[in-house]
C-alpha cells in the first residue's frame, strides 16, 4: 500500500517535523535543545528530562522535531508497550547502554510515564531510574499529571520542564495555516470558537478543525463538544442552580457529560454557594444524601433501576431547593474529594491477598485482620516507606497493596 498521508488524521498529517513549526513554550524548547547539544561534549549531570503538561501542548511533538532537526534516532517506549521491571531492564536498558550501529546519536523516548500501569507495569519506575543513572544516551520522558505518585521518584534525577497550554494567538496561527494547506476556507469566527472550546489543547483544536472542514456544509458555529470538561461542568452547574424547575433540571442533568459519580461530587462541593440559609442547606444536602444512598444501593446490588431516582433527587432537591436565596453568579470549585477515591470507597477494596496471608500468619480471621494487623502495618509503612519491602516480603504480597488508601 502506498503511504498516503492525505487521509491521515490531521493531527498526524500536520505533526511538526521541525522545531520552527512548534508553537508555545519557546524557552523550554530552547533549553531542551541546549541540553541535547551538551551531550556532544560530555554526558551532563542529569541524563534525563521530564516534560510535564496537559494534552496537546507539544511535548512529544517537540521531541520528534528536535530529533528530526538534529538527525537523531528515536527509540520510543510508550504505554502501548509492556513496561514492567523486566522489559525495561532488558529492552530499554539495551537501547540506553549500547551505541547505535551507524553512530547516529540516539534519543530514548519514554512516553507517558505517568501512564505506567499499577498492576501490569509493576516495578517499572524503579527500573527506569536504574537505566537513567547509567544511560549513554539522552532519555526524554513525557507525562500529563504532575501529581501522579509514579513521578515522585523521577523528579529527583530528572530535569523537569513544565509545558503550558498554547495561547490562543499561537493556536490561531496554526489553525489558519493548516486550513490554508488543506485549501479550506474557515472564518476567523469559527477558528476562535474552536480555540475557545479546546482550552489550549492544540491537537484537539486541529481535530475539531478537521471535523468542521470535512462536514461539507459550513454551519455558522461549531457544534462539537466543549472540550474543556471543567467549563462544560461549570456551565451545567450554573444552569442547574439558576432554575427552580425540576423538569428543566432533570433535562440538564441528563444532557450533562458528567457521569453520576462526578455529578454528586461537584454538587456537594458547590451547593453551599447557592444555598445560603441553614434550612436550604439542610434540605439540599439531604437530597444529595438520598441521591448518594441510591447510588450506594445501586453499587451494592447492581440494581440500576434506582439510577433514575438518583437523578431525580439531584434535580428536584437542587433545582427546587433554593427557596430563599436569590440566584447569584459564583465561581465553582472542583471537588476536593477525588473521583477515584470516591469510587474506590464504593467498590470494596480488594485486599484479599494481604488479608489471607495475614490471617495465615497470625491466626486471626481475614475479617478481623484489618483492625488487628493491617491498619498497623499500613501506618508503619506510611511513615517509614523503607520498611514496605520487608513487610511485603514477609507477607508475600506486592508492595502496592500495603499502601494506605486515601493518601498517596
Amino acid at each position, binding site marked *: *500500500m502506498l503511504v498516503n498521508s492525505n487521509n491521515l488524521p490531521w493531527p498526524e498529517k500536520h505533526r511538526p517535523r521541525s522545531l520552527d513549526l512548534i508553537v508555545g513554550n519557546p524557552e523550554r524548547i530552547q533549553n531542551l535543545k541546549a541540553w541535547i547539544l551538551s551531550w556532544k561534549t560530555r554526558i551532563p549531570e542529569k541524563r534525563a528530562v521530564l516534560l510535564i503538561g496537559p*494534552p496537546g501542548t507539544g511535548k512529544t511533538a517537540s521531541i520528534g522535531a528536535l530529533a528530526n532537526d538534529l538527525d537523531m534516532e528515536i527509540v520510543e517506549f510508550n*504505554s*502501548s508497550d509492556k513496561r514492567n521491571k523486566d522489559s525495561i531492564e532488558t529492552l530499554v536498558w539495551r537501547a540506553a547502554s549500547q551505541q547505535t550501529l551507524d553512530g547516529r546519536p540516539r534519543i530514548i523516548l519514554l512516553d507517558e510515564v505517568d501512564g505506567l500501569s499499577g498492576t501490569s507495569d509493576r516495578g517499572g519506575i524503579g527500573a527506569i531510574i536504574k537505566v537513567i543513572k547509567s544511560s549513554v544516551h539522552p532519555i526524554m520522558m513525557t507525562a500529563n499529571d504532575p501529581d501522579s505518585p509514579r513521578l515522585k521518584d523521577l523528579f529527583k534525577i530528572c530535569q523537569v520542564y513544565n509545558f503550558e497550554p498554547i495561547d490562543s494567538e499561537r493556536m490561531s496561527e496554526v489553525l489558519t495555516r493548516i486550513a490554508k494547506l488543506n485549501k479550506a476556507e474557515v472564518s476567523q469566527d469559527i477558528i476562535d470558537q474552536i480555540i475557545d472550546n479546546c482550552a489550549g489543547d492544540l491537537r484537539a483544536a486541529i481535530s475539531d478543525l*478537521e471535523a468542521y472542514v470535512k*462536514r461539507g456544509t459550513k454551519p455558522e458555529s461549531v457544534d462539537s463538544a466543549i472540550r474543556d470538561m471543567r467549563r462544560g461542568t461549570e456551565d451545567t452547574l450554573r444552569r442547574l442552580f439558576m432554575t427552580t424547575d425540576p423538569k428543566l433540571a432533570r433535562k440538564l442533568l441528563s444532557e450533562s457529560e458528567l*457521569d453520576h459519580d462526578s455529578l454528586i461530587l461537584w454538587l456537594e462541593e458547590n451547593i453551599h454557594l447557592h444555598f445560603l440559609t441553614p434550612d436550604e442547606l439542610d434540605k439540599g444536602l439531604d437530597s444529595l444524601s438520598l441521591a448518594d444512598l441510591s447510588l450506594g444501593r445501586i453499587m451494592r446490588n447492581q440494581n440500576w433501576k434506582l439510577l433514575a*431516582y438518583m437523578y431525580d433527587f439531584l434535580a*428536584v432537591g437542587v433545582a427546587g*431547593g433554593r427557596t430563599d436565596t436569590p440566584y447569584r453568579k459564583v465561581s465553582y470549585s472542583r471537588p476536593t474529594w477525588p473521583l477515584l477515591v470516591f469510587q474506590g470507597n464504593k467498590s470494596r477494596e480488594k485486599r484479599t491477598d494481604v488479608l489471607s496471608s495475614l490471617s495465615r500468619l497470625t491466626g486471626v480471621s481475614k475479617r478481623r485482620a484489618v483492625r488487628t494487623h493491617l491498619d498497623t502495618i499500613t501506618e508503619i509503612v506510611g511513615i517509614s516507606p523503607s520498611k514496605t519491602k520487608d513487610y511485603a516480603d514477609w507477607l508475600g504480597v506486592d508492595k502496592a497493596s500495603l499502601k494506605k488508601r486515601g493518601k498517596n
Partner: protein
Amino acid sequence: MDLDLWTEKYRPPTLSGIIGQESIIESLTRFVETKAVPHCLFTGPPGTSKTTAAMAMAKDLFGDTYERNFMELNASDERGIDVVRNQIKNFARTMPSGDAPFKILVLDEADHLTSDAQHALRRTMESYAQSCRMVLICNYSSRIIPPIQSRCAIFRFSRLDEKGISKRLKYIAKQEQITLESSGVDAILYLTEGDMRAAINLLQAASSTGEAITDKIVYAISGSASPETIKTMLTDAREQRHLESLQSLRKLIYNEGVSPVDLVKQIHKEIQALDFSHSQQMSVLEHIAEIEFRIGEGANGEIQLAALLAHIGIGSDASE
C-alpha cells in the same frame, strides 16, 4: 407467522438509512467520500444508533472488504490493559486488506476501559494512525481520559426524536402490510422513550395479534398500563379517593397483569406530570425510590404500592 426479527430486517445498512443525528451522519458521509476518517469518539445515551452509525460508516467505506477491515470490540467484556496491548494493537498494526485506505476498529463501551488501559490506548492511536482508525463509543465522555479525547473528533448523539421513530414505524408497518393506528404509534413512543430498537420490537409484538394496532393493543401486549389509568390512579390517591385508587392498583396487577416493577416505573414517569409542590414532590420521590428498592429486594408489590398511594394521599403536610 413471521420469524424474522424486524430490528435486524430493517437495520440500515448504510449511513444514508440512519434516522436522526443528521449533522453527525453528514460528517460521517463526508469522511467516507474523502476516504479520510479521523479517530472518533461517539458519545450519547443508550439506543441512539451509535454502533449502527459506526458499522454503516465502515460498510460504506469498505464495501466488499468490510469483513476484513473492520473489528468491533466490547470493552465491558475485557476492560484491562492487556486487551489494548494485545488484541487492539495486533489489529491496528497490520496493513488494511484490499484497497482500503485503513482499517476501522470500533471499541464499544470504551468508558468501561480501566484508566490504565485508556492510557495504553493513546499512543497506539497515534503510532498506527496510518493503518487503523478508532471509533470509541461511550455513554459519558467524562469517563474517557483527556489525552484520548484530545486525539478524537467528538460526536455527541442525542435522543432520537419522536418524529423520526414514528416515521420509521410507519414505514415498517407499510412494508409488513399491517394497520398501525396513530394511537398505536403514540403508545409505542410513550413506552420506548426514544429507543428505536425497543420501538420496533414492540411494533412486531403488537402486530402478532393480527388486529389493527391501537394504543390498547400496545399497552396490553407490553404488559403496561395506559398513562391515563396511571394518572387517574394517582389523582384519585392525591384527592383522597383512596378506595378508587387502591382498586385501580389491584385491577392493574391482577387483571391487566402489569408487574409491580413496571408499575413503579410508570408511576415514576407520571408523577412528574402532576403539579405537586416542591417538598411534596421530593417526599414522593423518596418514597418511590424506597419502594422500587424494596420490591427489588423481594417485598410484596401490592403492599408496597398501596403504601405509595397512601403516602401521596397524606399530602405534603405530613411528609416524613
